[in-house]
């Protein structure tokens, strides 16, 4: 703060320098929903591009030549006598788009990604393209993560609403305190405990892989049953912790809502209790939870990596860890990009959907 600094006059950013209203602007202001959608989709692309770019440079700037080191790892592990020549390294660097300066690598990568949906060859399964490796794992992850996440959300929102509604009751207090204690516990702690109880001690549920290998995958009842059985433990570990955190946040949304005038009013109207809960209280707090759900997908993905790894589940998490252990840029980046894409797209869809569900959403800020 120099003594001679000019006087501080804060100029509000929202003021208008009053350009003459153009036709487009007028149209947009007449159609706020359309304007909102256009803006939102625009923002989506900006964010998508930004996130993909940051991820790309992040991985390229990490020290280490993936090809060289992979080859040496392979030598060390299995092929004591095989020799890696500089030609070999050069060839695969070319193949994996690691030649040229960083910026041209980036342009090439983005071009292939955007125009052809091509993530480049995978290293963990050369020469299979990374997108094939990822797409193979994706259904398992969507099945495990998606279903568990949705279940956790449904259970959590319902139980949280009830816990908020029945504030002061013992059950509610227990649920709330448990949630506070456990909502931030890593999924895999629960997974470990579940495995120990159900797989080791009782031996009733499998703790590895995704289905019984005696069954040929297909649309048979047997196969689906097996998938469910094998997915139970990993799924449960995500559902349990997830439910706790949704209980907590729903309750946090619910309590202020319970103090709202319209709830007192609804009570004065002589409506039945469950009706007030569902039509008045819950409806006002599940909507923000929908947005939160979209955002949370990303976090679940984080925890999911470890759960899949623990259960040797053939999903993206396991693929990711394998890829990282082998420095497979294309696959790691691909998985990261898929996660970015799904979170952003989910949030976009929810944001576009929300004005239809929630009349209050102010879609102009």
């Amino acid at each position: 703060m120099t003594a001679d600094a000019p006087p501080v006059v804060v100029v509000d950013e929202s003021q208008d320098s009053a350009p003459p209203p153009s036709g487009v602007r007028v149209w947009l202001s007449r159609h706020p929903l359309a304007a909102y959608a256009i803006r939102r989709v625009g923002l989506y692309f900006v964010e998508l591009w930004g996130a993909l770019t940051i991820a790309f440079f992040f991985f390229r700037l990490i020290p280490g030549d993936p090809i060289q080191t992979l080859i040496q790892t392979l030598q060390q592990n299995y092929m004591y006598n095989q020799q890696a020549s500089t030609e070999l390294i050069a060839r695969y660097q070319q193949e994996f788009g690691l030649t040229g300066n960083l910026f041209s690598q980036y342009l090439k990568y983005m071009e292939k990604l955007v125009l052809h949906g091509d993530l480049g060859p995978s290293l963990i399964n050369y020469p299979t393209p990374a997108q094939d490796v990822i797409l193979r794992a994706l259904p398992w992850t969507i099945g495990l993560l998606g279903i568990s996440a949705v279940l956790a959300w449904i259970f959590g929102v319902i139980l949280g609403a009830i816990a908020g509604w029945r504030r002061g009751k013992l059950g509610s207090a227990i649920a709330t305190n448990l949630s506070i204690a456990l909502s931030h516990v890593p999924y895999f702690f629960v997974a470990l405990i579940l495995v120990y109880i159900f797989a080791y001690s009782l031996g009733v549920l499998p703790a590895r892989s995704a289905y019984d290998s005696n069954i040929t995958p297909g649309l048979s009842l047997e196969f689906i049953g097996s998938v469910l059985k094998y997915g139970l433990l990993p799924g449960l570990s995500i559902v349990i912790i997830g439910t706790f955190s949704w209980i907590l946040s729903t309750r946090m949304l619910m309590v202020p809502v319970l103090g709202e005038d319209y709830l007192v009013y609804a009570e004065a109207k002589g409506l039945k209790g469950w009706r007030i809960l569902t039509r008045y209280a819950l409806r006002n707090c599940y909507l923000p939870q929908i947005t939160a759900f979209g955002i949370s997908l990303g976090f679940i993905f984080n925890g999911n990596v470890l759960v899949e790894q623990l259960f040797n589940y053939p999903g993206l998490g396991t693929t990711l860890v394998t890829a990282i252990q082998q420095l497979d840029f294309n696959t790691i980046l691909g998985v990261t990009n898929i996660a970015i894409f799904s979170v952003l797209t989910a949030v976009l869809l929810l944001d576009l959907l929300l004005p239809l569900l929630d009349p209050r959403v102010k879609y102009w800020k």
Partner: protein
Amino acid sequence: SSGGSYSDKPANSNKPVATKSIQIGKANIPVPRDQSVIVGQVEYTVFDSFNGMIPNGSPGGAGVELATEPLFFLSFATGKLTPWLATEYKYNDDHSELTIKFDPKAHWNDGKPLGANDFKFTVMALKDRADLFGGGGDLKEFVKTVEVTDPQTAVVKFLKPTPRFHYNFIAAIAGAPNNIMPEHIWKSQDLTKYKDNPPVRSGPYKLKQAIRNQKMFVWEKDPNYWNKDKLDVKPQYVIFQSTSKQLDQASLAFERAEFDVGSIDAQHATQLANTGYPNLVTTQFHDPNPRVMWLNCDPARGVMAEEKMHWAINYCLDREKIGTSVWDVKVPPAIYPWADYPTNDKWKDDELAGKYKFEFSLDKATQLLDEIAPKNAAGKRTYKGKEINLEIITPAQVDKAEYAIANVLKADLAKVGVPATLRSLSGSVHDEKFQRGEYDIDSSWAGFAIDPEQLYTDWESGKAQPIGKNAAGKNKMRFKDPAFDAISQKLSGMDPDSEEAKPLLKQALEIYFQKLPLLPVIQTGYPQFFNTAFWKDWPTDDNLYEVPLNWWPHFILVLGKIQATGQKGPA
């Protein structure tokens, strides 16, 4: 004061442990349990490709080894070289030509004959392809032409004489450096793109199924196997499956006989044995790679370039303690940079070993250190005015033995005033540092060799790169010694078993003892665990059958000797 260890807890009581009955679990496999051997293995990532010439083009340790046969098997346990696809090899007198004869019975598992033409195709296809695994290298360095004189005879003409060219076709440990490929399959394929699925090989097993989501490979006995007279493998199926990374689960699976080979560790095995588990066979097996400390010899690393420093570090290595307390099982110390197999005894030299005696002595270490790196006023050891601080790296994870070994060394170095940092680096990062010479001490394993010159040739000064430049697998410790170079040069064209090689080998070994570019630490005992619930007659300490004795190519020889017990799997 303590109540003993977890694994020997039941044995503490004086009562002999009753044999307990085992609960057989339902193995997660798609074939009859009683006809299958199940091998617990590493993590697989590749399931649809068996082309080993490209990176990750073929899964390692997944059973391809049972289908892929070498020209010769070498058993470390007996020192015996067994001709397999080939019947014999012969060099001419000046080692400029090698003749290989193939077994006329040999054929590929698709029925096509196997012989000299495939050999020629393989050598010529790979020779100039340095961009492929197994390409370039010795093939390029030595081979001028390959002549096929008849379908069973190939003659390799060399560019320069060598007595070791056939090493490339011997399976001694992980498989031969070069396996021959069926010409009729590969001649029209792009070697970098073809996935070789299903793999056309010659071994007693053929791939039945690879199940990605189960991380499993199912190999089925080939009824048309060419060498049935010599080798009749007993199991109808061999299953290779990734073991759980949690040993709890892995050992439970073993206990329930869901695996026949592997999947358990020494500690759990001891526990099982002590609790009366009846079906466990433990067989000691030494990896041909002793654990070693690589010492960086580059002058840029300061004090590390000093011979005396190498000896000081050597005196700080408590091999006894490491062999007893760190390694999973009790193992002997290592002095020579090779494994203590009977076959290798001929390379030993007790006189030299006595002269340069390896012992754990912090006093001697201190004495040496005081000469080269005296302590400064602050009590810190300095070399050329700079305080010393060593950087120890290891590719092993922190819970693995190599890390623990380095940790023991680090603690003892600290006692003689040499501070060190120890880092476990993930495979790829480690390799980069190691190859570039950005380390002082590396705790890992030695290379493997059939004769010492195979090691020595990599230690030649010419192969030492400056720090920061990738050594590409050679002379990673930047060792430089002109006398040694000269000896190695001479040895390279010489039959190592010949009389004239003997004095040279001795001289080379003496330079090794003087300069210690690497410090062997311990022999590496890997107990192998076999389950006798479904199969019996596994290799034992008294009769190893073959070394290596599991999953490597030699495993087919084990599979030919075991017997079914008649146990049926659960429904």
